[in-house]
């Protein structure tokens, strides 16, 4: 019970630490700005359809909230997850503040759990804000909206899928103990994974060999980017633009994506935990 209390104290601490960072706040504001800009573009496209582009306006309008909620997914939400996870452990070593906390009666497991859960809850909060903003804008400008009972499902799918890069950045932060290196490594993995997926998709188009698509599914970006879309489709929310954006889905793929997210997350978190338990607390490094 006392251990849980200490974990809760560290969660609260992690929130304060993150919210005190101007870089983090700027990133969140940027995501909101992108979301609002996206909304303006959608609004323009739907009301002034360009020549040659046939948009099924009446079908999209009642479900526009799904596009709004999922718009930042796959890039901006991943960047926020990386930003939260990457600095969580490493900044404490760089600033020398890890000493202050770990010289107090708290176990390293409690500390790392509080740090991780603090980062996760913070990310969940930011994702909730973007979800609420997307839904609110859609209702305000394109009401009535349909299938709003599934907002929590899609929100949870977004949070769950982003566990992969949140955990990857968290692990890099603990292993490398340098924030810039951790952020670069995690972003590097994300970009490399996206680029390789793209190349494999192109090779698949040329050769029609299924193996290339199958291989791309094991890259971390596949499950992260596609899982919320798969969930949306599983809920029978059929937005025409969404189908075009993400391609067709087999039922088994939602389970594969979900399982891969769980496996990646567990592996990254376990590496971070083993590292902090087995190693020394390094002195100020920045």
């Amino acid at each position, binding site marked *: 019970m006392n251990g849980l209390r200490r974990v809760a104290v560290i969660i609260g601490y992690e929130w304060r630490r993150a919210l005190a960072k101007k870089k983090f706040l700027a990133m969140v504001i940027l995501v909101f700005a992108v979301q609002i800009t996206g909304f303006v573009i959608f609004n323009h496209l739907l009301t002034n359809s360009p020549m040659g582009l046939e948009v099924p306006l009446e079908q999209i309008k009642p479900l526009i909230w799904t596009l709004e909620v999922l718009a930042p997914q796959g890039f901006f939400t991943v960047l926020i997850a990386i930003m939260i996870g990457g600095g969580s452990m490493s900044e404490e070593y760089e600033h020398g503040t890890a000493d202050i906390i770990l010289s107090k*009666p708290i176990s390293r497991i409690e500390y790392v759990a509080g740090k991780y859960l603090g980062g996760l809850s913070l990310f969940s909060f930011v994702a909730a804000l973007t979800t609420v903003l997307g839904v609110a804008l859609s209702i305000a400008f394109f009401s009535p909206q349909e299938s709003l009972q599934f907002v929590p499902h899609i929100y949870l799918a977004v949070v769950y899928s982003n566990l992969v890069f949140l955990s990857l950045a968290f692990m890099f932060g603990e292993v490398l103990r340098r924030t810039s290196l951790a952020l670069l490594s995690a972003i590097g993995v994300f970009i490399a994974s996206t680029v390789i997926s793209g190349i494999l998709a192109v090779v698949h188009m040329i050769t029609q060999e299924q193996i290339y698509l199958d291989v791309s599914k094991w890259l971390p970006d596949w499950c992260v980017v596609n899982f919320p879309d798969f969930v949306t489709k599983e809920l029978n929310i059929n937005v025409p633009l969404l189908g075009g954006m993400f391609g067709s889905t087999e039922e088994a793929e939602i389970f594969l994506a979900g399982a891969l997210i769980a496996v990646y997350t567990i592996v990254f978190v376990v590496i971070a935990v083993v590292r902090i338990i087995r190693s*020394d607390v390094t002195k100020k490094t920045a």
Partner: protein
Amino acid sequence: MSYKSVISVSNLTKFYGDFKAVDSVSFTVDKGTVYGYLGPNGAGKSTTIRTMLGLLKPNQGEVQIRGVNPTKDPVQALQCLGYAPELPNLQAFFTGKQLLDFIGKIFKLTTQDRKKRIKQLLELVGLKEWENKKIGKYSKGMVQRLSIALALINDPVVLIMDEPTIGLDPEAKTQFRNLFTTLSKQGKTIFLSSHLLDEVQRICTHVGMINKGKMVFTGSIGQVLETFTQQWVVEAELEKVTKTIVSSLKKFGYVEDVKVEGNRLKIKLKEKKDLRGEISSEIFKQKGVILSLNLHKITLEDAYMRALKEGQ
């Protein structure tokens, strides 16, 4: 839990890669003791302290705080302990009050206890007016004061302080030295690493000396002075120093050497005896006028330098 010593370090060895930072260090600190941990830069003092706190994992040996190993059970071992690091890096986004509150929560203090304790401590360290200012705006001395307050938030039984008065103004130094003495009288055990030997001699009851990772000496202040005292010195200030006075003193069997520094004589004695009577009669005989005559046995600094030299 039963334990003999409040702090027990046995056969502690710590490597950084191939470099042996601490080499088979052993010492114990008993209840109510003020233990000064001395050594030059890079001697292994901070490594020892960080291992005592469980921040570093020893390659060999063991540390126990009140019978509990902080590496194995930090929650129990550190519950009764307060730590003030050297040149602390505190969370700059907190105010002083918020940081004390946060650390108080880790120590499981109740809201009421934290409120009361924070008020007391901020007054004690002279930061009451700065309690709601961000730590990022504090001066080095203020950070040091806050660090000492942090170390006291849980009313600890054992205090570990790494150069606690560094960066403090002379008035604050005196204030904190008095505080440490008061805490020691209350039965708290204090482990203090310092470069300021006169400070250690004034506050500490026991000392440990470390050089190049090896323990050179551990014992009471009296023991260290006794162990490393080779000779006593009589310092005489005269109205005028003459050659006859110097040569007559040199002829004495108990005088090893006489040095002249202006109108002062530094007379090194062969034996550890107070021979001021004999020396003053000899100076009078040679018609010298004595302004002052003092016997210097040995300072902690002398003992420290000698200990390091012998330890090499």
